């Protein structure tokens, strides 16, 4: 499971890649191998997108700029 790559796919990208997978499967006469590969990729996207959607961010954070111009996020009391 390439966790790293999926982290880099935004929810939006996951959704559009899933859309694309579905329409390719629906519209194209694909060789079985390719269809299975696409199907698996689609399932992975769907699961990841759903997970992303239902995850909850518990904390509201505060944006703090340090004197050196770096940014830090602090938890908001």
């Amino acid at each position: 499971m390439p966790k790293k790559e999926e982290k880099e796919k935004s929810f939006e990208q996951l959704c559009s890649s899933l859309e694309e997978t579905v329409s390719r499967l629906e519209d194209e006469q694909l060789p079985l191998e390719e269809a299975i590969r696409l199907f698996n990729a689609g399932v992975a996207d769907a699961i990841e997108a759903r997970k992303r959607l239902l995850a909850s961010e518990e904390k509201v954070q505060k944006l703090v700029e340090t004197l050196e111009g770096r940014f830090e996020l602090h938890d908001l009391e």
Partner: protein
Amino acid sequence: MDLHVYSVSELTREVKELIEGSFPPLWVEGEISNFVHHGSGHMYFSLKDSSAALRAVFFRQYNQALTFRPENGMKMMARGLLSVYEPSGQYQLMVSELRPAGVGALQLAFERLKARLAAEGLFDEARKRPLPQFPACVGIVTSPTGAAVRDIISVLERRCPSVRIVLAPARVQGEGAAAEIAAAVRAFGRWGGADVLIVGRGGGSAEDLWAFNEEAVARAIFDSPVPVISAVGHQTDFTIADFVADLRAPTPSAAAEYAVPVAAELEAGLVALGRRLVRAGSGPLSDAHQRLDELERALAPQRLRAALRACRDRHAALALRLQRAARHSLDLARVRWSGFQERLSALNPAAVLGRGYAMARTPEGRIVRDAATVEVGQRLSVLLARGSLDCRVEGVNPAGEDTLASKAG
């Protein structure tokens, strides 16, 4: 008893010095009356309240900056110096600045800035950006203690629990508020982690909302690389920030609704997509299954027998056709052969002799075709249909006489 008698000028000068020396530049508020805009460009009027009046003069070089026409009855704030005009013994206010009093003053500044920024193109519809459909992180610029931040956060969390919320705190009213709001917006721009910003505060008086009408805030929003939703006060309040923002929300809660989609709706969409995926994906799979089934059926014994029978039948039919074809061609050959035979036998010299012709040959076996090639006394053998004759030539008649051809002619 030395009685000091002032001259008018003297007294007036002393009064002038006294008055002008004891009042620094000041603001005075009152209602305009007796307003005159002189041909010279100077304005003369009185400021009065219920029980007093003050003469005022507003010279051209100062009044040129006015964006409105003063009229009798307007409540005004005038800034200026008290002075005494000796020729008429009048004390008056030398006005350097005139503003509508109270909310009117703010309103005026608002209109002025709005006109200037509009002319610069800060409010152009064309530069308003669409908001991201699925922001991962929402940035908020507001007071960390007000109702607005609580409203925004609760709406965001209800709609889309997975969204990250980052607040850049700023005071939203009072001295220095505009600078803090602008700085917070710019900080988000430099940080780059937020996908959309909500900049605002809850409702309040016009003065409370004033920070959002300041140029610093307008510029910061205009320069923001991140799309901005403004949310200042309630439904009816429009601020400069609202005009510059990519989207204006009537309230902070509404801004939060614009900022993020409803996760539950998205999830329904995802589930539907998932179903389509399964349906679409099972298509090729079931096609493959079907093909396999067909192959399997094709290999079943009874199918095999049938196939064999079909094969045999086809084979038999072919054989039959082959036979027929062969016979046909033999027949043809036979017909052609007999024709050939006839033609051949017609050419057979024996058959010619049978019809009564004879063939004369020299002793060397050369067939004689021309009488001119034969000499008198020469021996010839004459071949008949049956047997032959040895002859000696008695006479030679050259061509042209007594030939078959001439006789026929």
